[in-house]
């Protein structure tokens, strides 16, 4: 059985923190409670599924600051803000910065759970994307240097002839490499190759 997702609750108000913890526990989540942002950063964040329920105004590091820090660290955990204040500006900023939701206290159970569920789904999505990308990366890693060169030229849309010319190899060899590349990357067509390249950010800009 898949372990229950972990919800990280960061709030300097103990009542809220603990009550949310209890509620989420009762709803079947694992919870980890932190009374400030630094505590969270100091601890190790599990790679298991989860999300962060984050207060905005806290002593020391504020919620949005923590959010930025986490993004910088490449943390994939989606953030649900639960703020004591209805501050539209902050809400917009955090959402822009990738927050999953921005709720205000007192928060209704259903809305919170919805937001958490959505966040977890997002997490799963991100996770899936992440997994796919790393799979593609590992596949690309399997390419020989020459194949890699051919791949890069192919996804730029160059004809075989030009590639052969550029690499000083025969057109036939290019086709051979292409076949090998499509096989290794488990692509079905040349178009697929372009999609993969794009996902991995290998397409040159412009």
């Amino acid at each position, binding site marked *: 059985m898949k372990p229950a997702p972990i919800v990280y609750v960061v709030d300097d108000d103990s*009542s809220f923190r603990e009550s949310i913890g*209890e509620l989420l526990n*009762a709803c079947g989540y694992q919870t980890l409670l932190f009374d400030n942002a630094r505590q969270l950063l100091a601890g190790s964040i599990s790679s298991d599924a989860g999300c962060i329920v984050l207060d905005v*105004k806290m002593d020391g590091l504020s919620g949005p600051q923590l959010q930025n820090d986490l993004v910088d660290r490449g943390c994939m955990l989606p953030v649900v803000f639960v703020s004591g204040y209805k501050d539209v500006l902050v809400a917009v900023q955090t959402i822009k910065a990738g927050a999953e939701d921005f709720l205000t206290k007192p928060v209704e159970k259903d809305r919170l759970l919805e937001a958490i569920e959505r966040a977890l789904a997002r997490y799963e999505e991100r996770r899936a994307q992440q997994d796919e990308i790393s799979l593609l990366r590992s596949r690309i890693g399997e390419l020989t240097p020459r194949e890699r060169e051919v791949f890069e030229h192919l996804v730029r849309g160059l004809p075989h002839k030009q590639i052969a010319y550029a690499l000083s190899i025969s057109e036939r060899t290019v086709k051979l490499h292409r076949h090998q590349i499509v096989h290794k990357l488990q692509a079905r067509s040349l178009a697929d190759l372009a999609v993969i390249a794009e996902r991995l950010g290998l397409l040159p800009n412009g």
Partner: protein
Amino acid sequence: MAWNRVPEFAEPRWTKGADVEKLPASTVDRQRDVARLDKRRPTLQLVTALFAVLILLCVSFQPAEASTRHRRIYLLEALSPAVLASGRTIDGFKRRLHERTSEEFDLFVDYMELMRLPSQAHLDSTVRYLSQKYAEAPPDLLITLGRAAIPFMVRNRDIIAPDVPTIVANVPSTAAPDPDQLRNVVYVVSRYDFLKTFRLAQQLQPKAQNVVIVGGASDYDRQWLDDARRELQPHLARYRTRYFSDLPYDAILREVSQLSKDTIVILSAFLADSTGQARTTPEVAADLARVSPAPVYSPVAGTVGMGALGGYADDWEAHGATVADVALEILSGKELTTIPRLNASLHLNRIDARQLRHWHLNPSAIPSGSEVSFREFDLWERYHRQTIVIITIVLMQSAVISWLILERRRRQIAETEQRQRLMQVIHLNRTALAGALSASVVHELNQPLGAIRNFAEAASLHLKSNPPKLQKVEQILESILRDDQRAADIIEHIRELLKRRTEVDLHEFDLNELVQEVVSIISPEALKAGVEISTIRANGSVLVRGDRIQLQQVVMNLAMNGIDAMRNCAPGCATMSIETVQIDDSAIEVSVSDSGVGIPPHMLRKVFETFYTTKRHGTGLGLSIARTIIDAYGGKLWAENRPGGGTVFRFTLPMSSTVRA
């Protein structure tokens, strides 16, 4: 009652021919108020007597040949010194002389005792004595007093003082003989007007049925009684009339005591009763009045005031004064013939108001022009000037006192009002503070409320699970209770802040705790404003005595001001520090410093002024109230700018004496 004054008239019998006679009080304005005279008379008498002795001594040592010898006036009283009339007449005479001229006279008074010693031998010796005396020191003026002197003078004048101008005084006009019989004489007449006295009695007692006329048994008395009979007889037709005269004194009094109330008692002259016992008329009037069931009237001067209700009578002193007037005319060299032969002083209806009241007689029946004595003046009548002054002073004092009391009252009211207003303003400031905090309070309150809700949801889920996780629920309920308490505490804080208080509530408390409390109240607001609050507290408890809510308000005002000053600070730069420092054994200093915009130096004082504010929604009350409160506890509150920017507000408070280390 005035009857107990009778013994006054038992005056000493003066010896015949006493040269240095008693000088009665001549300077006293002899109001008929005997009571008043009683008090003053002895000392005055003494003083005047000494004075007179001195004068007479001086006179007697002067050489006889002196060209400026004093002129001699001989006063010759027909009866004895015991007759009140002569004494009073002489008093009035002397006083008037003194008033009218500065010339000094040698006065001689002789009492001839013609009534008490009626023998021819006495008469002869008297004539001898006088003629010898007058020859030795010739009189410039002779004045006889009394009716009995007339026959004596008629017979003996040529012997004793043939050419001396003479005034015959104290006689009724009817007694004046023909001018031929007694030449070179003017009369000052006084009379006992029985008819007018009777008329007065009739007016006062219109329902009277009886008339009783009381008189003495001496010859002199008989003469007067004859006059009375003659005058009254025609008018007594409708009265039962009786005369009490030829009786012993006791019998007379007894008779009088048995009279009926509707009687008019008229007292004539009474110098002796049928046994020859000497009396004075005023004395008799007193005795009669004491025993009589009806009022006593008398035309004899001096009886009114002694017991007689009234009478148409002379006044002896006025009589004496008239004698003096005539005497001075004669002495000034005026021809006797140019002076009216008969002179008289004022006769009036004289009434004793005390008697009037005693007999319940109607005062309105008194004829106009009467002289009413012994009216019991009320304070107003008697001392109206003094009364006015005293009343005025009392009124003014009362007014001043009332004014002061009123002023004090008003001040008290004003002070109370001021205190109440101050309390109101303080309260206003607290509500403003509460208003400023309301957003954070709502936030603060939302925390436990939200938590309770979450806990409740959680508990509900636990109960629905199979099997229900009761232990978990139990834990949650405890948490719910805790958070409920937290919400209640917050509400309590606000309630305390908003509570309308009319009186100051003094307690001893720890200032450190108070600071902590303030921090807990304002920290949500500080958090919201991005202000970091730190506290540095003096060691141990810092006990002060005061109204905790008010001092909390002071710290809150300062802290809220600090937060407001840091609204525009860069994140992380807004810091506030609240410090308590014990500066010496008896004082504690609390400082609230911020890293805000600071106050321009010239405004450091102005910020404490009422209604001075820089905030858009400020009331301008916070700091002025803070200062008022601190002042009230004997502390000081001031502001300084910090060297590194920002402001520090400091206040000192006296520490409570019971300080724990």
